């Protein structure tokens, strides 16, 4: 095998599974260590720089980091990364002084942002400190977009949204709320240097079955209904509620319905329980609130009498797989019927761009989505950029933020006449953590605690108040223990073959048998004859040549605990534990520096 090029930032970045999986590439282990140390302000600022909405994400993130977490491969469950982030947000002190302090010297450029959701606000956050005049338009009376209108208050209180939207508007971003942008052409004509479209995917998919129109009064589109609940327009619902759909919106609908008078709320999904799009923890929370999830039921008909809904019927189906593993839902012939007073339809969201004219150079594909460059987020009109759900369809907050950072870089380059396709690389530091013999600047003892559960508010109390936050968050003591479960994957095992005397000390001590000294070979074959079989091909083998015996050092990164035992037992310092910090490129602020990483 070719020796590993550890100079390539991607190599060690990939070892930090959580950071690699995070769309915004937040340096997770770095802030978890700070949380363990009680340095909540520092932990918050690292998050704020990288993902802009730590308090919001700490409650609502889709957590792509957690399935990726290495802990999940050596233990039953990953580190509760998301809820630790919330700990930093909840326990920090006043961080206003650590935010970029305006007024920022103007660079004379004006940027229009359409939509005050996570994408639009994050673009504004990145551009304002660089001297841009950013004007954010939104039809809602306040900022946050779907964060505010779609996510129930019992999961995300308004105070958290207000605070984090506030940090952005405090940067001198101009907000034009209550103003619906009805024409992109008009906006462009106002002479903006660039326009960022972060208008989300605002349209809920319709239910198309007989009886839908006749019983319309009691059939609601999920996202619209949630938004009405959120703004206080809807305060009650019938006792028996059917929620259609298996995504997180369906989970929010059913749990909201439970709090507004729904005593018999059930979720009904077309596919199997396992394939539902909702996050496992959201399904759990719904079921915990006595909401059954019924699967393999395809809506057939809305049953109504005298213009009032009576119930719904469904075709019972089963999943059949063909040779290629493709699934089809085949009717079993059985029809089941459930009585209900209201139906909430949460079967998907769609993009809608009725306000973008067809003749202004913004091209759309045959699915009605704008043609957007996946790297630069520039549309076919070079002055118009897209991000968040508006760019590639419904995803989630953290993706919106990641898009926004890249779009902001593109807008900055575009406004300065530079090539947007040339992307700035990340900042990388790799520093030894050795403090002495057997002493490291990180806590290298490996906790064997299982994942801690976040304390919840009492169920009865939760169900009578739609604004009462259900999750109470980890307290400091629990947060410390959970933080100690983090394996510090960013503290890398760095190997210097020239120093190695091949004494085998590292091989013998490694608790997970990830180090081998062996003859060279092709990767596939090599993977079979290491100290432990290296079956997980998504994880790299770290290969070093240049040993005296002509063998190679091959380390399977898969389940390395980053405990530093190899480096502790190494007599020559050939192994060293070095902290790898990868700082994604962002728009350079003018004259001021964003809070430096701890």
């Amino acid at each position, binding site marked *: 095998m070719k020796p590993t090029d550890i100079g390539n930032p991607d190599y060690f970045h990939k070892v930090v599974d959580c950071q690699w999986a995070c769309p915004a590439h937040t340096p997770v282990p770095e802030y978890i260590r700070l949380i363990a140390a009680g340095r909540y302000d520092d932990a918050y600022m690292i998050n704020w720089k990288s993902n802009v909405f730590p308090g919001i994400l700490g409650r609502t993130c889709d957590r792509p980091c957690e399935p990726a977490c290495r802990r999940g*491969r*050596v*233990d039953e469950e990953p580190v509760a990364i998301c809820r630790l982030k919330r700990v930093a947000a909840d326990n920090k002190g006043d961080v206003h002084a650590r935010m970029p302090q305006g007024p920022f010297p103007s660079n004379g450029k004006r940027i229009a942002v359409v939509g005050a959701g996570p994408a639009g606000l994050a673009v504004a956050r990145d551009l304002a400190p660089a001297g841009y005049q950013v004007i954010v338009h939104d039809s809602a009376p306040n900022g946050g977009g779907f964060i505010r209108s779609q996510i129930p208050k019992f999961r995300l209180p308004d105070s958290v949204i207000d605070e984090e939207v506030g940090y952005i508007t405090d940067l001198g971003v101009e907000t034009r709320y209550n103003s619906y942008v009805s024409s992109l052409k008009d906006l462009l004509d106002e002479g903006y240097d660039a326009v960022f479209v972060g208008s989300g995917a605002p349209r809920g998919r319709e239910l198309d079955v007989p009886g839908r129109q006749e019983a319309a009064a009691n059939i609601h589109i999920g996202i619209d209904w949630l938004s009405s609940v959120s703004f206080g327009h809807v305060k009650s619902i019938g006792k028996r509620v059917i929620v259609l759909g298996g995504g997180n919106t369906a989970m929010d609908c059913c749990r909201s319905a439970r709090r507004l008078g729904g005593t018999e709320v059930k979720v009904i999904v077309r596919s199997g329980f396992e394939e539902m799009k909702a996050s496992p923890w959201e399904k759990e929370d719904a079921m915990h609130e006595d909401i059954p999830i019924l699967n393999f039921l395809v809506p057939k008909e809305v049953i109504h009498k005298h213009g009032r809904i009576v119930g719904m019927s469904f075709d019972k189906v089963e999943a059949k797989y063909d040779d290629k593993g493709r699934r089809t839902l085949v009717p079993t012939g059985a029809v089941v019927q459930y009585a209900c007073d209201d139906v909430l339809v949460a079967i998907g969201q769609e993009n809608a761009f009725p306000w973008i004219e067809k003749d202004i150079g913004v091209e759309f594909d045959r699915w009605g989505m704008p043609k957007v460059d996946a790297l630069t987020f520039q549309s076919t009109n070079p002055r118009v950029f897209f991000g968040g759900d508006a760019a590639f369809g419904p995803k989630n907050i953290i993706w919106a933020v990641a898009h926004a950072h890249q779009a902001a870089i593109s807008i900055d380059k575009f406004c300065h006449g530079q090539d947007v396709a040339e992307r700035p690389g990340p900042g990388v530091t790799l520093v030894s953590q050795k403090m*002495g*013999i*057997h*002493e490291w600047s990180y806590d*290298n*003892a*490996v906790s*064997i605690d299982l994942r801690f559960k976040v304390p919840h508010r009492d169920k009865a109390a939760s169900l009578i108040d739609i604004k009462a936050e259900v999750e109470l968050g980890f307290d400091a003591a629990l947060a410390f223990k959970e933080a100690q479960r983090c394996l510090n994957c960013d503290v890398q095992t760095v190997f210097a073959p020239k120093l190695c*005397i*091949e*004494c*085998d*000390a590292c*091989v*013998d*001590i490694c*608790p*997970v*048998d*990830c180090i081998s000294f062996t003859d060279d070979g092709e990767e596939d074959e090599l993977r079979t004859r290491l100290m*432990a*079989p290296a*079956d997980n091909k998504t994880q790299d083998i770290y290969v070093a040549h240049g040993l*005296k*015996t002509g063998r190679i050092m091959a380390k399977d990164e898969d*389940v390395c*605990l980053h*405990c530093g*035992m190899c480096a*502790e*037992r*190494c*007599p*020559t310092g050939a192994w060293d534990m070095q902290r790898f910090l990868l700082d994604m490129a962002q728009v350079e602020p003018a004259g001021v520096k964003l809070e430096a990483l701890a």
Partner: protein
Amino acid sequence: MTFLPKPKLHHPKLVENGLGFTRRDYEGAISTLCAGCGHDSISAAIIHACFELDLPPHRIAKLSGIGCSSKTPTYFLGNSHGFNSVHGRMPSVLTGANLANRELIYLGVSGDGDSASIGFGQFAHSIRRGVNMTYIVENNGVYGLTKGQFSATADKGAKSKKGVANNDEAIDLVAVALQLGATYVGRSFSGDKAQLIPLIKGALTHKGAAFIDCISPCVTFNNHEGSTKSFDYVREHNAAVNFLDVIEGREEITTDYAPGTVEIVKQHDGSLLKLRKLSNEYDATDRIAAMNFLQEHHAKGEIVTGLLYVDGESGDMHDLLGTAKHPLNDMDESLLCPGSAALEKLNASLR
């Protein structure tokens, strides 16, 4: 300075042996020897060997004397019996334990100081008595615990860390063991587990006195240029005569080998020692030839390693003494105390 214990988490696919134990179950406390010590590799090799042989940890007794080497039993087989004896006296304690309970597997761990100086006589007599044991000398040629003075196994002419040459002749423990009738004699190197693990497995399954001299570089005091027990020197001068596979049970050997390249030795317990010859002229069942070979190569400055001698028909001390077939702790009162009539009879026979 803290020594953290080895983390309990292990590889998700860590295999179990026939007893349902993983290799981790054969580990001991974390080593407090110098980082990189050859002895730790030998401990790891012992762990591998016992795991692979499916040995029940509670049936193993590990005994040692004094020295860096003799500290190591703490670092492996944490669930086995252990006895850290007086300096150089491990062989006597082991012999006594073996006499009392012949059913345990005895593993004596010693060093070059413990066995070639203060306990030289003890070593010699346990070998010539044919005690059923695995006797491993972790041989680094220096007294590591007292800052690196030459030991009795240091080669003549070898240089100390400060550059002073050793003027005394070295004791070759392998040569002594061969001469005194050890029925299983091997030499290996801590830096070569592929050779060492099977050698230990063979010794553990051998009936009789099995002796392994394992060169184990002292990273702190004897791993410099001029040393003859450094990683580099041993790797450069290693003359391995064979490569051993220990085949348990009575499985058939079906692979065909070119004639003269493989030698199969059947041991008492039915296990087979398969020796892949690396040196054509070498016959591991010929004791006299082995002694000659050793001397010739020693004169050339080569370190002969591998399974140097094995007697498949070996017996042990209990056979020679005609002792009772069962351990003393297995005997009930009627056996241990046969009554006054039996005593009378015995006394009468002696009058």
